[in-house]
């Protein structure tokens, strides 16, 4: 695992911890930094990271707190408080 991939992993954990501690803006900065590292090092973000972050406002999503998860026909829809809806299939 490259250093960049590890940094992304670490930032994911930090963002989750910060969001759980009520530091939403700090979690956002961690998410942005992880995205930037992935971009610069041409790495794919982990699926779990993609599903728990908002693509529009970079918030770390906590279902029931700042995100709603609904199971739809053929896909899961998760909507952030900012209004962004992400959908991903069952599999």
């Amino acid at each position, binding site marked *: 695992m490259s250093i960049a991939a590890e940094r992304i992993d670490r930032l994911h954990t930090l963002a989750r911890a910060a969001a759980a501690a009520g530091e939403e803006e700090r979690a956002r900065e961690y998410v942005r930094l992880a995205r930037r590292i992935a971009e*610069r*090092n041409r790495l794919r973000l982990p699926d779990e990271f993609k599903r728990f972050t908002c693509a529009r406002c970079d918030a770390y999503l906590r279902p029931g707190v700042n995100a709603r998860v609904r199971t739809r026909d053929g896909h899961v829809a998760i909507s952030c408080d900012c209004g962004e809806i992400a959908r991903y299939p069952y599999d």
Partner: protein
Amino acid sequence: MSLTPETLTRHELNGLSARVVDADNPDLVGVAGRVVVETQQTLHLDDGTRVRQVPKRGTAFEFELVDDDALGFEHGADTRSASETAGDGPGAATEADRVDAPTATDEAAERRKASGSVSKRGSETPGVRPGQSGSTHEGSRDADSASRDRQDTVYVTVDGVTLLSRPAHRTETTGDSRWR
């Protein structure tokens, strides 16, 4: 490539415990806490009551590397020893030198050995912290060879100048974009 003393300057600093062992600004010496924010020129250390913003330039930081730390990352002991032995080649001195720029090369080599055999030293030096305003080199020597509370903890002293770069760019060895 786990988080080792060699890779620290290119690795993620957020979330690590750090302490200021020497600084141009005497008021900042002794500031300790978790790194919560990193910018191009500063680190923000959260000491539990407040967040202190410390410039990287002119500051020596002592980072606490816990092998199996609270973040839930498992750096297997075998991977670390593998990287340690791999570093014993001809490039070892320069690698260690790059991590800890101000110290002499042989001192850095000594520190590498110390970090490798750290689990044996755990009980020898309980609770000895280097003096807060003592000279840098003494402090870093003490800090590096001593593992105080936990067996897998390694203390690495880094000159802040080696950390001067944008947080997202620090991982890249060249320092410049590969697209240029």
